[in-house]
């Protein structure tokens, strides 16, 4: 077997360097969590290791659950690097600036179903924003970036996912936020059920209010 060859650095993200590689005729992605000079080394090591292992485990679990996400190829714990399938496409964040309303509704609904499926399996994404969703050429949706995910079916945790998505739309795509969330939730409730969706939505509301002002000593 040949050594993977780096073709290009795709992104120097906030926590990782993501590169595209060529390996035995396949396109791969490597995600290398780089040390952060601002953190105390022990703490830094611990955080990167934890997230890398976690992301790898979750990618495996997602495959089993039938949630579209990159397939994991290899985990190199010593360098905090994950090698995974390359998804050819664009980030939802970019797509939202270009797509027409009807397509957006369709994608929102599909995303709702996918997130619903993931939540039913007790997986919480932890960073569900429009930059962590990729659309491929056929507009099939993939979820990526599971370093902050957790395994839980606690309403609070699930609600945080919905809250994060909603807020990422609010802060960067506020014009289509309402329409997007409406269709997202329709898709979501198709999978997890109406009552559960309402329960989660109540929690989302509570979280939003909570963050604003929490008084001391209380």
């Amino acid at each position, binding site marked *: 077997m040949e050594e993977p060859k780096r073709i290009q650095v795709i992104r120097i993200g906030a926590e990782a360097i993501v590169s595209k590689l060529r390996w035995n005729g396949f396109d791969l992605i490597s995600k290398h969590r780089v040390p952060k000079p601002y*953190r105390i080394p022990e703490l830094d090591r611990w955080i990167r290791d934890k997230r890398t292992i976690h992301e790898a485990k979750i990618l495996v679990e997602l495959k089993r659950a039938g949630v579209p996400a990159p397939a994991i190829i290899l985990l190199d714990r010593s360098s905090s690097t994950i090698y995974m399938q390359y998804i050819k496409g664009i980030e939802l964040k970019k797509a939202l600036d270009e797509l027409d309303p009807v397509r957006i509704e369709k994608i929102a609904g599909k995303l709702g179903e996918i997130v619903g499926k993931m939540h039913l399996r007790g997986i919480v994404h932890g960073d569900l924003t429009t930059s962590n969703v990729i659309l491929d050429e056929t507009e099939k949706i993939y979820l990526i970036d599971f370093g902050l995910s957790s395994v839980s079916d606690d309403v609070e945790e699930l609600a945080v996912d919905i809250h994060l998505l909603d807020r990422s739309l609010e802060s960067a795509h*506020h014009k289509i936020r309402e329409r997007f969330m409406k269709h997202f939730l329709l898709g979501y409730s198709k999978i997890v059920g109406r009552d559960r969706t309402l329960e989660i939505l109540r929690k989302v509301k509570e979280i939003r209010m909570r963050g604003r002002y929490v008084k001391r000593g209380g």
Partner: protein
Amino acid sequence: MAEEKIVLGIESTAHTLGFGIVSTTGKILANVNYVYKPKEGGIHPREAAQHHSMHAARGVMEALRRAGISPERIDGVAFSAGPGMGPCLRVGATLARALALKLNKPLLAVNHGVAHIEIGRLVTGARDPVVLYIAGGNTLITAYLDGRYRIFGETLDIAAGNCLDAFGIEAGIGPMPNPEVKAREGRKIHPLPYRVKGMDVSFSGLLTAALKLLKKGIRIEDVCLSITETVYSMLTETLERALAFTEKKEILLVGGLARSIRLRQMIEAMAKLHDAKVYVVPPEYAGDNGAMIAWTGALQLLSGLVIRVEESVVKPKFRIDEVEVKWRNLNGSK
């Protein structure tokens, strides 16, 4: 250029009753603040409100005296409408209404969070920063986008300042900066829950876990090191995400916790990786103060964001992104 106007601003969201007098060109003529200190534990809204009522009249006079102006020179009266504690907010609002009626001048309802940002931009010269607003009652990451300060991240439970203060008080060493000072003698880091969700953070689990370490007999210096390093790493990391996401090149730190030396150090190191510049509000304007309300009031006066006395209700949960930041597109960025 329009003629210079003068605004009196009143702050009373929590422990501070503040009076500021600032001109529409950004001259700070007075900044007088009275801080209520609870005898023990956290702040009691009613007691704080009593403290504020007691100092109200004296504060206005003192601010005018320092500014060297007579009340007639005031062109607008601003007050902190929220977020904050109801009883405290009402003291400032009542006083502002009375003054506005008496002087027959416009009333300006200011968002306390927006005011922290605007005074920060004024005194540091930051133009279009990602803002980390860290205080006793608030933890949020925000930046200007499309006419508003949009919230990119915030706490999912308690504020960072609240967490560290509560820890210090429970541990018997007192609130910030004491935990940070003690941490300097720390040698060993103990893992604590590091809960980051996107650009949001959560501190309540970490506070509980740190107190548990103490009960287990771990050196207090080490627990202080662990809790401060963990809290600051979480804040720096989420700020880094927001910086990458918004692609801005400036960071502005505002709120009481911006006084932290170690946190600043970490954020400076992070900013270097992104060629971003860090601005820190000087101590005098870092905590709650009257000048920030007066200055934001002045900006609102310039852009016609005045309010009728009958409509001037306080909003304990006033969100920063409810405010239309009209003044940012007036002339460039100021």
